[in-house]
């Protein structure tokens, strides 16, 4: 019964890869001394490509006879995950080393895609240089380590000082409650109706961006949460959930954020980074600590003035309750494929790619928060952009997504709820009720709790 599924899965994988046709352009030399590296590359994300190019040279020079086959996948985060998963399904297409989103680690470990790295890590002297909290990102449910983190991130409010100044808001700005945000946004709107005062993502168009850079900042600031780690259950029926939707509704109804049509465009973030903030047409937005990577020299939306014009503030809790701020963290890792024919060689390459020099280059070029202590203390890292300290401090109030196998579906249900509210299709209470019903249907009544 399982065999046909595997064969079929392989077929599907092949079909999927043919259809995507984005990767594997070069003929694959099947030799034991070739290792295949799969990772993401887009027009606005080339930092990792550069790291792998350097690591390839370094590694091939040190290991004669070994060819490193780099196979970047050109796709956004969602599609990258899909293509990677399809490639994992067949021995012939599975990578030896690959770039893996932290929130997919646990579910992909369950799927048998990731190689357990415990024994290799034990004899790797640099593993002790990784900070303990970050190591957890690569841990499976069984407590073993399956992936090595490259960097992490936090989320904060990024605001344009000139727009706020024009509205008479004292700088540096630090809202204490949700109402402070609304008050400031209304002031900006009153002074110049053409600016977008405070943008927060919503809807399915921006995918994980909607939840990571918008909804969870709200939800986790109400004292509620998405998932109870202690009970291992999904939370439904919380007042915090409805309040968070209500906040988004207020923002969109009063036209304090972008129009709903813009919000549903999956490319809206490009306008935020590339046009609205640099041109002073947007007051503030909630975005990742990696924001400067777009504006710094060599970024996709170079903007020399960002260091002076932009400010960063932490996202407040609903009524200013403890701990006074909210942030969300994600980040990416490198992992070794479970189907690799040369696990030792693959792991050796992985260690080259995350050595101090390469990790530093990645963290600086991609504005990541360092996970290696030696990188974090490097003067080059601290001077990378003026905001490194501010966003690194947010690690103290940050939260992580519940990275279970059910998570992607729950996340979509949340995105759906935000979309229904900002487009006026449902009231916050109706959308929250529908979310509760979907969660119960998705994970079963035994895995939810009322809170």
């Amino acid at each position: 019964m399982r065999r046909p599924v595997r064969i079929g899965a392989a077929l599907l994988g092949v079909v999927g890869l043919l259809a995507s046709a984005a990767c594997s352009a070069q003929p694959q030399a099947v030799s034991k001394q070739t290792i295949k590296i799969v990772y993401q590359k887009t027009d606005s994300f080339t930092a990792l490509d550069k790291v792998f190019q350097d690591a390839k040279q370094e590694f091939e020079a040190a290991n004669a006879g070994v060819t490193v086959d780099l196979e970047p996948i050109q796709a956004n985060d969602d599609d990258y995950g899909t293509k990677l998963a399809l490639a994992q399904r067949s021995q012939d297409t599975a990578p030896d080393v690959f770039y893996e989103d932290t929130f997919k680690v646990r579910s992909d470990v369950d799927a048998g895609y990731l190689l357990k790295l415990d024994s290799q890590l034990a004899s790797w002297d640099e593993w002790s240089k990784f900070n303990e909290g970050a190591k957890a990102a690569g841990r499976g449910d069984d407590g073993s380590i399956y992936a090595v983190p490259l960097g992490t991130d936090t989320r904060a409010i990024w605001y344009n000082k000139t727009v706020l100044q024009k509205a008479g808001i004292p700088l540096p700005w630090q809202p204490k409650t949700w109402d402070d945000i609304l008050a400031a946004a209304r002031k900006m709107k009153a002074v110049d109706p053409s600016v977008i005062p405070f943008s927060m993502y919503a809807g399915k168009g921006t995918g994980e961006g909607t939840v990571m850079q918008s909804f969870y900042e709200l939800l986790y600031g109400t004292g509620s949460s998405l998932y109870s780690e202690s009970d291992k259950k999904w939370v439904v029926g919380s007042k915090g959930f409805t309040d968070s939707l209500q906040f988004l509704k207020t923002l969109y109804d009063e036209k304090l954020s972008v129009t709903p049509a813009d919000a549903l465009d999956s490319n809206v973030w490009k306008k935020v980074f590339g046009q609205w903030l640099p041109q002073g047409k947007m007051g503030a937005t909630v975005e990742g600590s990696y924001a400067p990577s777009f504006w710094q020299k060599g970024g996709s939306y170079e903007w020399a003035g960002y260091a002076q014009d932009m400010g960063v503030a932490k996202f407040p809790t609903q009524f200013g309750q403890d701990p006074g701020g909210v942030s969300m963290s994600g980040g990416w890792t490198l992992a070794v494929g479970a189907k690799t024919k040369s696990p030792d060689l693959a792991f050796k390459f992985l260690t080259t790619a995350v050595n101090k020099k390469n990790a530093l280059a990645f963290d600086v070029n991609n504005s990541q928060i360092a996970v290696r202590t030696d990188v974090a203390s490097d003067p080059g890292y601290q001077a990378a952009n003026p905001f490194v300290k501010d966003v690194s401090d947010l690690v103290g109030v940050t939260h992580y997504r519940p990275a279970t196998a059910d998570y992607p579906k729950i996340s979509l249900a949340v995105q759906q709820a935000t979309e229904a509210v900002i487009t006026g299709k449902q009231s916050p209470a109706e959308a929250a009720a529908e979310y509760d019903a979907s969660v119960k249907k998705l994970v079963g009544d035994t895995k939810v709790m009322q809170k």
Partner: protein
Amino acid sequence: MAVRDSFGRGSLRHRSPIQRSLRRRLRLLPVVPSILLLALFMLAPVAWSIYASFTNAALSGKAALNPQWVGLDNYARMLTDSAFPLSAWLTVVFVAVSAILGQNALGLVIALLMTRSGGTTASLVGTVVVASWILPEIVAAFAAYAYFSQDGTLNQLLGMIGVQGTNWLYAFPMAAIILANVWRGTAFSMLVYRAALSQVPRDVSEAALMDGARGWQRLAFITLPIIRGSVATNLMLITLQTLAVFTLIWVMTAGGPSNASTTLPVLAYQEAFKLGDIGYGTAIASVLILIGMVFGAVYVRLIRGAKL
């Protein structure tokens, strides 16, 4: 003729039944490669899709490692999933309005007009209509997106006459994808009908003309019955093509806003690849195959009827 006939029959009579059946089988030999290719590339994926729809196969998680047989669970889920009925309805609307009504009727009208117009006009119109059809689907989809989007061609044209356009893809997603599919697919129907109309014997309609039949009467009672077979074939082909339209919708609206343009192929893709639930995604795809087969059966009956 007579000689060959008697020769053939005579030789057959002298052969044993084994020889005869062998001969019949040998006759199949030339089509074996195409049958094998069809089985490998068409039947096998369909069979796998149907098989997978009875499992909980997934892209990630435990079910990716060991998919379990779940029987009819995926199909039962469709009945309780609010997205599915909406999606099935949108698919029917999309096929009925853009293919059966739009492409089919418009194709016929253009073909009829072309038979009456001069050679230059006909070839000019033909070129313009066919141009949208020969574009690769992804290019046509981007062109349609660029036409209907907020800062798109349509709104610029409207702006010139002082009308403030809306974001069509957001305000009227179904209308936008239906118009785009009509624009893209009409050429096919037009070509089929041009060929069919050229087969209509002129003396028949001339005789009707002599009897005093008006234009629409000749169309309804003479031309259409004669080309009934072509109509059925055309309907079958464009229905199946339109049922499977994915790229056009994905590029233009991605199924949104709020599932307002999520047809079954888009829903199947979302479930299987965005959410990694291959079991449910293939179940939706299997339903789509079933709908296609129902349409196909109806049209095949129409074609048979036409030939009698």
